């Protein structure tokens, strides 16, 4: 991460704009592994000011996947805090920054649909967006999670 991902200007500016970044070298500070329940590195944890964890990623991420991961973290943190209008506003960015990432693009579509539903209270928005997700990514984990709506119609 330190050799490739963090030196990337887009990554650095995104972190500086949206996060307070904290870094721990687990060799010098082995106690942090227990503090954060993290047996492996690299581990990335996104939490709020109260220390509530909203997302965790283990293993290396290149710049593009890192940005998608962080965008998803911001979207999920807003949903978890019931800040639906903010989540809705962040969902477009999450979809844009995860585009082409087979692991994260379907997840961004899933949570964007949830944000749209929660912000509007219009269940049709959820169903239409999940329908697109299932059409586009039927064999992914998130596509399968959304697919149940087709069985209950």
């Amino acid at each position: 991460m330190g050799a490739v991902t963090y030196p990337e200007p887009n990554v650095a500016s995104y972190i500086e704009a949206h996060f307070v970044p904290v870094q721990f070298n687990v060799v010098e500070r082995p106690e942090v592994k227990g503090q954060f329940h993290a047996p492996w590195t690299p581990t990335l944890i996104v939490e709020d000011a109260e220390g509530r964890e909203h997302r965790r990623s283990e293993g290396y991420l290149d710049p593009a996947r890192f940005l998608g991961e962080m965008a998803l973290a911001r979207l999920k943190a807003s949903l978890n805090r019931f800040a639906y209008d903010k989540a809705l506003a962040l969902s477009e960015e999450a979809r844009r920054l995860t585009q082409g990432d087979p692991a994260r693009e379907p997840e961004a579509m899933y949570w964007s649909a949830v944000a749209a539903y929660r912000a509007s209270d219009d269940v049709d928005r959820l169903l239409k967006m999940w329908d697109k997700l299932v059409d586009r990514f039927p064999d992914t984990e998130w596509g399968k999670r959304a697919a149940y709506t087709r069985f209950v119609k």
Partner: protein
Amino acid sequence: MAGDTIRWRHDIDRAREEAQQGKLVLVDLFNPH
């Protein structure tokens, strides 16, 4: 925007305090070896 360098903090409590301004905290645990 603070340019192209990440200003890493190394104290979680201070970082959480700083995040009260409306940001999230990003924790990176790494092994240099």
